[in-house]
């Protein structure tokens, strides 16, 4: 309806750097204030069609952006083009700490930033409103915004070391602003102040791999180093959270146990009763009839029951595969003793015993049994009496021990988790102005306090 509405703003034409003559592509459609030539690093006024030189490059350091300028990626619901890159630094007690910032641009949504420090990334959005200053219980400064209280982390003079590409403000190497960070991991509020302006922005932690995926960068994101101010604690530090996880996984194990218990076939494949004559001479071993173990690999429960009278018996067994000859040797000892001692009757009843053979492949098997008792070795009268015993084989039985073990293993790290979380918090706050987490009262020396918000 409006004829002007169909007017398409063309891609900006390539211009030439007035300093070195290289082609400069303006990506931000005129929204940028500064463009820095990628070749000779001369800073130019992007608002002037003649690209007036603002600053000639004094080469100190050169930094290669990890996200090439001109690449586009979809982050937080919009497409962004990386158009500018700078390295900034602060000096703390003689040591320079550097971080890098990428300017992201969308002609409708405006500017966002990606900030990178030791391969920790955050996505930064300019904040239209200003936060409310306060103090925490330890007397340390805070900023409140959107119902979240942020703890003061650091205030420092941020120095611009290296710049290429386009910026929505006029940026120069050597520019210094007072930068303050307040953190509520995984979020951060940052302010940058000069004499006539203070700007606030909100950052949120983002995994480097998400950036690599969004911008389709080759390879993988370099691994993050150390603990970053707004890195989510890798160990759950919220009280109660480890217990929640514990109960979740315990419930999961319980569910698996129920599932496998109901799925277990519990098929009795052999149930025979034998009589062992210890006094008899000759071959004591016997073999059972053959039986089928169906299906794939599954366990096999062996249960031995004996009728004993103040005696013990060891039932040596071998489960033998008819086809392959593969043998599984095992044995069970049973015993029953009772008597009267000092007018009190006592019993020791171990007349039945069972075991589970794990992972027996399917096939046709038989059992070779070789019982033993002390009568066989020596010869006492009472042991000479015959022993009746039964052997029962059950294929695929539910097996509870591993679940109990699982729950036990889940429980093991719990007492340590809270501690590890607080160790991470110590590490996180080590790099702050305070060197200690926000619940610790620390008085700052005058030179690093930047809290006096305004004059």
């Amino acid at each position, binding site marked *: 309806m409006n004829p002007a*509405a169909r*007017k398409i703003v063309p891609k900006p034409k390539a211009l030439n750097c007035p300093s070195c003559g290289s082609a400069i592509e303006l990506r931000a459609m005129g929204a940028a204030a500064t463009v820095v030539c990628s070749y000779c690093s001369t800073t130019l006024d992007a608002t002037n069609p003649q690209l007036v030189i603002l600053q000639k490059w004094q080469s100190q350091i050169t930094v290669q952006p990890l996200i090439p300028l001109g690449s586009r990626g979809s982050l937080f619901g919009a497409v962004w083009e990386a158009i500018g890159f700078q390295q900034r630094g602060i000096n703390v007690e003689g040591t320079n700490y550097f971080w890098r910032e990428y300017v992201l641009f969308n*002609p409708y949504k405006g500017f966002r930033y990606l900030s990178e420090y030791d391969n920790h990334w955050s996505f930064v959005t300019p904040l239209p*409103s200003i936060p409310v200053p306060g103090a925490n219980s330890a007397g340390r400064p805070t900023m409140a915004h959107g119902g979240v209280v942020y703890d003061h982390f650091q205030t420092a003079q941020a120095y611009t070391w290296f710049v290429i590409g386009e910026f929505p403000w006029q940026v120069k190497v050597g520019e210094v602003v007072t930068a303050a960070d307040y953190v509520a991991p995984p979020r951060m509020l940052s302010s940058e102040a000069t004499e006539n*302006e203070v700007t606030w922005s909100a950052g949120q932690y983002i995994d480097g791999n998400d950036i690599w995926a969004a911008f389709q960068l080759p390879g993988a994101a370099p691994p993050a180093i150390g603990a970053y101010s707004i890195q989510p604690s890798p160990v759950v530090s919220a009280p109660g959270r480890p217990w929640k996880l514990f109960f979740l996984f315990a419930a999961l194990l319980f569910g698996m146990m129920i599932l496998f218990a109901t799925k277990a076939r519990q098929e009795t494949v052999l149930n025979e009763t034998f009589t062992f004559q210890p006094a008899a001479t000759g071959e004591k071993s016997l073999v059972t009839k053959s039986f089928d173990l169906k299906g794939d690999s599954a366990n096999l429960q062996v249960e031995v029951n004996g009728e004993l009278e103040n005696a013990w018996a060891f039932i040596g067994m071998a489960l033998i595969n008819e086809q392959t000859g593969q043998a599984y040797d095992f044995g069970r000892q049973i015993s029953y003793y009772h008597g009267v001692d000092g007018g009190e009757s006592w019993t020791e009843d171990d007349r039945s015993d069972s075991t589970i053979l794990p992972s027996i492949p399917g096939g046709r098997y038989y059992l070779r049994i070789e019982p033993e008792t002390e009568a066989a070795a020596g010869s006492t009268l009472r042991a000479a009496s015959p022993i009746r015993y039964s052997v029962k084989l059950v294929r695929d039985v539910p097996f509870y021990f591993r679940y109990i073990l699982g729950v036990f293993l889940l429980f093991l790290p719990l007492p340590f988790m809270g501690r590890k979380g607080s160790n991470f918090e110590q590490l996180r706050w080590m790099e702050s102005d305070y060197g200690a987490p926000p619940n610790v009262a620390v008085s700052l020396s005058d030179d690093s306090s930047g809290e006096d918000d*305004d004059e």
Partner: protein
Amino acid sequence: MSQPSAICPNCGAPIRFRWSSAIQTTCEYCKSILVRHDVNLTKVGQVADLPPDISPIQIGTEGRYRDTAFQVVGRIIYSHAVGAWNEWHIVFSNGSSGWLSDAQAEYAVSFISAPESPLPPPDQIYRGFEYSQQGVRLSVTTLTEASYEGVEGELPFQFWDKTTCRFADLRSIDGRFATIDYTESPPLLFLGEFVDFDALRLVNLKEFEGWTA
């Protein structure tokens, strides 16, 4: 919205007003700045070539603010030491008018507002200065020396030959926004709020090659 027509006193092209209360407009054809006296238009100046477009908004863009439809009918372009911004003159379907400012795609809607207490003179305002208006506590976050860079379309006042002036931007804890404009004496106060681009539901936007809104 009535559309009184007139003739450009410079080139004779028809001038169509989108907004009946417009005091000033520009001729789309010869770029003359025209000021309306009753029914006659007087040429008061000539628009230089506008600086490169820095906004997806254009004259004719339509949108909604707080459930009231508006149309963009004019703009003032300001530039300052480190950039430029647009003040788009918007006219609502109920006949009232306001401003949609676009500073590097940070959007705010504001309306002229009578100061409840005297505004400080330009040499006495500073970053952090606090001012309350309509129960909103505002704090100066930016002081800018800006100059007029160009005008386009219909404006509620004559604006064509202003020099460098001081502007103070104020923000609140809840996204409210104000500007103290020292182009006039006493200074003007505009009060409003920051708005999300998507919430404005703008149509008839400029298209950018290689981008979709």
